[in-house]
């Protein structure tokens, strides 16, 4: 079965693309591995109510359009040929395969982690992670939480914890107060007001706000944890720490599209033109995967991509660009200086999967490794189950600092299938040994 269009991701960009594609009469397929549409920003776990009308509206409109939506389907490979794309996924019923002439990647973003001592302990999580717990699972990360890092999620999570009945024992903002004075915040007065009300709530709750500070270390303390900030130990039962969002470029890397590094857009992102087209024929990208521009910009991008696929006039891009201003400003808020990387002690784990401390990575750099792929080959950093998604940014930044090169020079890790770990049986399926097409034996 060949679709006109396949859309990867049922978040704000993907859902909008699907709805638009339906209106334009295209036969489209949406694939998402979550149990419900909404991406991460409107994540939901029915029947738990996330209480988010925007998310509910997205889910309703996606369900109401004619797109074929495959939730709980994990895409593990995409291949391209002259006729389009072949998508290979695993769903609840086993292997799933589909073809589409065009492909819109709306895979969104993932969190940026910066390693610190103890970040591999249970009870430590990210800020986006905490948001998902609070909003989608209606669960507090802890009853006495340290919230740390940089970017808008810092205040969103702190407020979410207070609102859920928990205590924020400290809010540790890596940025000075001045980092938040950005004119572009005024482009969304509603969000600005919401942010100010969060700050007011934090003040009312007497939450200690430590600015220009980071969590240096987390250790087990009795049944809970102890976080060290500015030399002081803070008792807590959870630490939520994150440093902004990065585009989730797995699929676009795998398909060989050109990417560009731009700190203002969250780092490495796939390059698109004004019609959301990538430089690979038939491939489009919409939403945060094309650069972190936020949830308000994503639906515009999705619609434009769908219209571009259909060959329909895309209309003005002013709304999209206007909607992006706030999101891009939020990236600036999440950008912290090199010190968060250079201050990582030699024995602190950088690659959690392979248990590699900074010293091992540095030895490889001292030995002549200059790109992320060099370091990967020499140390196995990034070869574990997470595929480098937790550590690649920090390691790449370390390489850049030590070799005085740009992030562009350091490069991205090469994309390889499967896109996520998948059980061998799930992709190999049932087969008859005698029917396996075997090529000629190796020469004797």
């Amino acid at each position: 079965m060949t679709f006109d269009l396949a859309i990867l991701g049922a978040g704000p960009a993907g859902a909008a693309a699907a709805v638009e594609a339906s209106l334009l009469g295209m036969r489209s397929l949406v694939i998402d591995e979550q149990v419900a549409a909404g991406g991460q920003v409107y994540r939901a776990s029915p029947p738990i109510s996330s209480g988010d009308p925007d998310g509910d509206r997205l889910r309703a409109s996606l369900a109401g359009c004619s797109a074929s939506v495959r939730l709980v389907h994990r895409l593990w490979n995409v291949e391209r040929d002259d006729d389009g794309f072949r998508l290979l996924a695993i769903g609840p019923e086993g292997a799933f395969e589909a073809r589409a002439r065009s492909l819109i990647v709306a895979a969104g973003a993932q969190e940026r982690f910066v390693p610190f001592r103890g970040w591999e302990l249970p009870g430590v999580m990210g800020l986006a992670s905490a948001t998902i717990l609070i909003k989608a699972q209606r669960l507090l990360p802890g009853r006495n939480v340290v919230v740390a890092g940089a970017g808008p999620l810092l205040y969103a999570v702190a407020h979410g914890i207070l609102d859920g009945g928990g205590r924020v024992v400290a809010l540790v903002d890596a940025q000075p107060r001045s980092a938040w004075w950005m004119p572009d915040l005024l482009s969304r007065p509603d969000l600005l007001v919401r942010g100010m009300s969060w700050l007011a709530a934090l003040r009312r709750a007497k939450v200690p706000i430590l600015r220009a500070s980071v969590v240096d270390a987390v250790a087990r303390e009795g049944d809970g944890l102890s976080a060290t900030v500015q030399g002081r130990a803070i008792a807590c039962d959870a630490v939520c720490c994150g440093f902004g969002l990065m585009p989730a470029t797995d699929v676009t890397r795998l398909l060989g599209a050109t990417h560009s590094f731009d700190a203002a857009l969250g780092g490495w992102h796939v390059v698109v033109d004004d019609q959301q087209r990538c430089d690979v024929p038939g491939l489009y990208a919409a939403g945060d995967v094309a650069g972190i521009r936020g949830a308000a910009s994503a639906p515009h991008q999705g619609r434009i991509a769908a219209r571009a696929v259909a060959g329909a006039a895309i209309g003005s891009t002013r709304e999209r660009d206007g909607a992006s201003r706030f999101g891009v400003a939020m990236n600036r808020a999440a950008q912290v200086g090199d010190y968060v990387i250079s201050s990582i002690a030699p024995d602190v784990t950088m690659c959690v999967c392979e248990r590699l401390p900074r010293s091992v990575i540095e030895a490889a750099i001292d030995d002549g490794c200059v790109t992320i792929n060099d370091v990967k080959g020499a140390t196995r950093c990034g070869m574990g189950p997470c595929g480098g998604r937790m550590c690649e940014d920090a390691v790449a930044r370390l390489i850049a600092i030590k070799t005085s090169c740009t992030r562009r020079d350091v490069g991205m890790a090469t994309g390889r299938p499967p896109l996520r770990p998948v059980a061998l049986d799930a992709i190999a399926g049932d087969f008859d040994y005698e029917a396996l097409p075997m090529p000629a034996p190796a020469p004797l």
Partner: protein
Amino acid sequence: MSDLRIGERGNPVAFYFDDARIEAFEGETVSSALWAHGIRGWEGGRAYFCAMGVCQQCTVWIDSARVEGCRTPVRNGMRVRSRP
């Protein structure tokens, strides 16, 4: 440890984690149920880190299949293990 759950829940669900009986609610992930129960980590894993199915820190075994706890909804009678 007082409850980490916020607000209402739907139907109760009970499953087993390493033979311990865990009470949870429909819609919760295995990771959430463990978290709310006070189990945040075990040897070689933790219930939540990225919460997005990316970091692979939350993998558990269900019927000899290794799955991500953060993306697996709880079901009645499920037998979940922290090791194969």
